């Protein structure tokens, strides 16, 4: 069974953390992953940096730009990760935009992910219908779970469609925004979380966007299986460097 599905079965709320590979230093990737696992993170999203990250706000944009400047490429990332399964057991997801994967070759990319032990992908600009028509069989062939986003504006009908194509979890974007744009949740978000909760979807939901601390993590996981922190962690790494991960994770979980 895919590590993501296994993890989703655990009787606990899951903390997923996003970081940009190659940031702040090109060779921080492996140690960040190891430290996140060691400190109790459940799922890691490894950001493959892109020159034009449309769905991201200034924090992740800046980290991506610097990571690329540091020399991060698809090849380099795969090379850094080649022995990752010797030391890390939790689910690993690569999050990135479609063009770098398309240039690498979608099948070659998926094959490499399987070899390394990547469990899933999040590709914000690969639409569900294109995935379904062209790439789903390839992803499945290499045992990869593709994670789709939904937002407060996504219609019930489309959520059902996305649920039918998903085989891991659904990434519930807390408010229609780029990453890092908003912090915290209002009435509107909690109503939306409840609405989705009441739909009894096949796939559990993990909330992302707007989660930055223990309070927002607790709030989000009242309604969902877990929560994803991206910009807040990238900011932490920017300020404190890659060697103070225990502080950050402890501040979320406790």
């Amino acid at each position, binding site marked *: 069974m895919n590590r993501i599905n296994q993890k989703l079965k655990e009787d606990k709320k899951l903390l997923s953390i996003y970081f940009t590979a190659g940031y702040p230093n090109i060779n921080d990737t492996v140690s960040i992953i190891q430290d996140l696992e060691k400190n109790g993170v459940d799922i890691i999203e490894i950001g493959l940096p*892109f*020159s034009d990250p449309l*769905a991201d706000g200034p924090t992740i944009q800046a980290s991506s730009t610097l990571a690329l400047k540091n020399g991060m*490429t698809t090849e380099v990332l795969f090379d850094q990760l080649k022995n990752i399964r010797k030391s890390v057991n939790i689910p690993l997801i690569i999050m990135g935009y479609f*063009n770098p994967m398309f*240039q690498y070759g979608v099948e070659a990319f998926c094959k490499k992910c399987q070899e390394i032990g990547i469990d899933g992908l999040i590709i*914000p600009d690969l639409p569900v219908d294109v995935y379904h028509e062209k790439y789903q069989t390839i992803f499945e062939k290499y045992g990869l779970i593709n994670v789709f986003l939904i937002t407060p504006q996504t219609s019930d009908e489309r959520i059902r469609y996305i649920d039918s194509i998903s085989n891991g979890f659904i990434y519930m974007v807390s408010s229609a925004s780029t990453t890092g744009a908003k912090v915290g949740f209002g009435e509107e978000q909690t109503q939306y979380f409840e609405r989705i909760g009441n739909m009894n979807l096949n796939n559990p939901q993990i909330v992302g966007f707007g989660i930055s601390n223990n309070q927002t993590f607790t709030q989000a996981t009242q309604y969902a299986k877990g929560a994803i922190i991206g910009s807040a962690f990238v900011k932490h790494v920017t300020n404190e460097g890659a060697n103070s991960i225990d502080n950050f994770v402890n501040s979320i979980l406790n």
Partner: protein
Amino acid sequence: MTKNMKNYNVNEKGYYGEFGGAYIPEMLYPNVEELRQNYLKVMAEPEFQKEFDQLLKDYVGRPSPLYFAKHLSEKYNTKIYLKREDLNHTGAHKINNTIGQILMAKRLGKHRIIAETGAGQHGVATATVCALMGLECIVYMGEIDIKRQAPNVARMKMLGATVIPALSGSRTLKDATNEAIRDWINNPVNTHYIIGSAIGPHPYPDMVTKFQSVISEEIKWQLKEHEGRENPDYIVACIGGGSNAAGTYYHYLHEEDVNIIAVEAAGLGIDSGESAATSVLGKAGIIHGCKTLLMQTNDGQITEPYSISAGLDYPGVGPMHAHLCKTGRAEFMAITDDEAMKSGLELCKLEGIIPAIESAHALAIFEQKIFKPDDVVVVSLSGRGDKDLNTYINYFNL
């Protein structure tokens, strides 16, 4: 349409051959889908058409003349006609599209308008129609372009628009487009994004092309008056994202006897590393929501283009043009900064017309390609050069 000719228009799935589609984050899906479901319906409404046509006539000043450029023709020993989009209100073809899209936005009940701009022509054209309709207008513009197109920034402000500098990446058109898309993601309900070229996710390339197609619709009857035939031997346009080109080609795409020439900016030279000649330097990839030809590294990172003309300084071309290139329907030519500037000045001296530097690229092909004396060549003079005076002044030490 000739029987065994390919289809060069968009298909029902939003593709031109292998190019096009809507590669957008889920956050944009409701907006883009709303537009996709409605744009053809709205455009077909008699009321919409009436309002569009009326504004093009009374406000934009259409039809724009098709001018026989006598001296230019003599110099290059062929028959050159200029489609005078430079005479439109606001000084370029861009307003054809913004008039159409503002009417579309109103039909869709949107009251906040966003746009990206490179040369500032599209920004001005958007600010203009927003003033006309009393809608809020926010224009994203690369920090570098804000500097090199200062008069247009002032115009947008006078027209009541807010100009927000794009500070990321190369700080030009590509990055302004990123920022506009991010704004749309963050404002999913009341906002319409007026894209300024034949780019972006489906249905934008098709919608923009259709609004610009008035250009070739007019050329047909105008050329008939001049030459007794609707079809020229060649039609020529410069390509940034490709909206003036798409409009100039549209009614000729399936006319086999009409040769299509697309002119890209070679910048300092195709192999100089400072260029925007996408058809030569690009390969298939995804940019701003569509699959098309784009300039990128082997690793799939989008590279930063260069051209002296802000309007051509874009690392991709619209998906329709990628298809025209791939199928060989259009001949692509690349013109350097120097060649364009020389041809721009030449048009001033020979015909008394100061062209936009973008348009000057299209004029420069006559130095590269020999036409027959009785060939009829129609060139899209997409805009006037007022906005480029600073660049002309610096380049020629005027």
